[in-house]
């Protein structure tokens, strides 16, 4: 099989083909390397390539399979991950100048679990500096570029993850999501991205941003990819006392394509204020698609969202500002302009406002669940109210007047970080400039299986997730 044929496989297709002996880990890796060599410069998605180590790992897996060893659920699948997951002895830049030479002494729990599942780690991916913008701009490593058109944003902060998966360089990658950083690049690049329930995936060995709202999760081609990936990385970890002891189900088991009787709530008006016409058309077409599959779609108007949005902006800004305080004193010029500006402002918020925001989180989660999910199984919203913006029109470093446009991009994603709900973004079409449109689905806490089931059913009936930019 050619590298392009292998690269067209989803993560689960590649893993299953390896398990059946239809393809070697070495061939899958060479396909990734070939795609990277031919297309990598178009997207600037990779920070570090571990070509030789990955080849050794792939050969080892091929030998183990020949010897009849029992291998993991992701055996043979090459991956790269956002450059904020610590691997002992390897530089982890966090997309920054400040940590350009940082070598952690520990390996992230999620990387250990992916290793144990047989995934081949081939390197690290570009990201917004310290995971702190929604566009993918990076002043130190260069912006990741949207595979559909390099002038446009990839979305951030998991910019390289979105670009590398959409560009068929890797089949899946870790992102992280504190205000939309998995779902925005998924939406803007046209791939599938899952932010799990807060506490579902341990964060040991993961660069912090805002410890109350940080989430670890996958970007992949399909909902099935996200389901298998999550099944590997989810579950309690002694190193992260905040990680949930909730049992981890078999997320793939429920992917049967049957969503007859599913009740979908469309939340207005919050997620639709000043929405772009072509984005709205894409959303409405997706709702029609879910109805065709047997779901019912109704409108709800949760009043809690105004408070939710106010409080999440306080929590993420204060926590981000706090952990960056020392560097902001010592080396503020080492940050990109837009990032130091954002971190700076977080210091102005009083502690009482921050504690109010945290204290209202539980009551507002209960209220939102009553308002939006009381009679419904999932909430559906657009992840973005605007078309994918260009990198130029959201570049605050070049012009501070772009500040509002940058900050507004996460308006539809960040409420779900405050609420802690599992939320997925899947591709549902293209706008009038040919850039992807996403659909965001959320469900009750720990109901990842629910959003994955809906996303999978939609993907069985459509081919948006199967389209490739090159």
């Amino acid at each position, binding site marked *: 099989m050619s590298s392009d044929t292998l690269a067209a496989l989803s993560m689960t297709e590649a893993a299953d083909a390896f398990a059946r002996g239809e393809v070697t880990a070495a061939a899958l890796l060479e396909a990734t390397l070939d795609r990277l060599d031919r297309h990598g410069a178009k997207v600037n998605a990779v920070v570090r390539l571990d070509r030789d180590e990955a080849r050794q790992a792939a050969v080892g897996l091929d030998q183990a399979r020949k010897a009849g060893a029992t291998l993991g659920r992701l055996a043979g699948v090459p991956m790269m991950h956002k450059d904020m997951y610590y691997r002992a002895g390897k530089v982890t830049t966090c997309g920054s100048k400040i940590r350009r030479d940082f070598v952690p002494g520990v390996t992230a729990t999620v990387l250990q679990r992916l290793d144990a599942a047989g995934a081949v780690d081939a390197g690290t991916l570009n990201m917004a500096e310290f995971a702190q913008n929604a566009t993918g701009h990076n002043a130190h490593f260069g912006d990741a570029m949207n595979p559909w058109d390099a002038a446009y944003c990839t979305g951030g902060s998991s910019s390289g993850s979105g670009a590398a998966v959409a560009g068929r360089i890797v089949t899946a990658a870790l992102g992280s999501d504190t205000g939309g950083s998995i779902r925005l690049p998924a939406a803007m690049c046209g791939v599938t991205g899952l932010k799990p329930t807060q506490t579902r995936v341990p964060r040991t060995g993961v660069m912090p941003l805002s410890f109350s709202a940080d989430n670890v999760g996958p970007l992949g081609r399909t909902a099935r990819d996200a389901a298998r990936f999550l099944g590997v990385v989810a579950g309690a970890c002694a190193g992260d006392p905040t990680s949930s002891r909730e049992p981890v189900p078999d997320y793939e088991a429920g992917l049967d394509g049957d969503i007859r009787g599913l009740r979908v709530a469309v939340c207005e008006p919050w997620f639709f204020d000043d929405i772009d016409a072509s984005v709205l058309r894409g959303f409405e077409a997706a709702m029609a698609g879910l109805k065709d599959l047997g779901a019912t779609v109704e409108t709800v108007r949760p009043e809690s969202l105004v408070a939710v949005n106010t409080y999440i902006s306080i929590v993420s800004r204060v926590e981000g500002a706090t952990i960056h305080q020392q560097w902001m004193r010592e080396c503020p010029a080492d940050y990109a302009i837009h990032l130091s500006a954002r971190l700076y402002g977080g210091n102005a918020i009083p502690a009482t406002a921050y504690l109010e925001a945290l*204290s209202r989180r539980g009551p507002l989660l209960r209220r939102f669940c009553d308002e939006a999910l009381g009679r419904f199984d999932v909430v559906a919203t657009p992840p973005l109210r605007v078309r994918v913006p260009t990198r130029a029109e959201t570049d605050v470093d070049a012009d501070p007047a772009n500040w509002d446009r940058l900050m507004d991009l996460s308006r539809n994603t960040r409420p779900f970080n405050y609420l802690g709900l599992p939320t997925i973004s899947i591709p549902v079409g293209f706008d009038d400039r040919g850039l992807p449109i996403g659909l965001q689905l959320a469900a009750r806490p720990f109901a990842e299986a629910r959003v994955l089931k809906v996303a999978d059913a939609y993907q069985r009936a459509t081919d948006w997730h199967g389209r490739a930019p090159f």
Partner: protein
Amino acid sequence: MSDSRLALPLMDSIQRWQGIDAPNAAARHGMKDFEGLIAALEKLRGELVFEDEPSSFEAALTACKEREA
């Protein structure tokens, strides 16, 4: 680009409490966000009750699960 009326007092407060100076023009520009944020918080006054505390969130995550999940 003119400063928000809040910019100078907030910048002074940050300098006193954290010893951090505004790093650039964008940081000063971003101070204008606080007009809207304070107004939004003002509308929420009275909703925080005496017993509210941050740990209510973990309890709510469990309480709000799907019944069959």
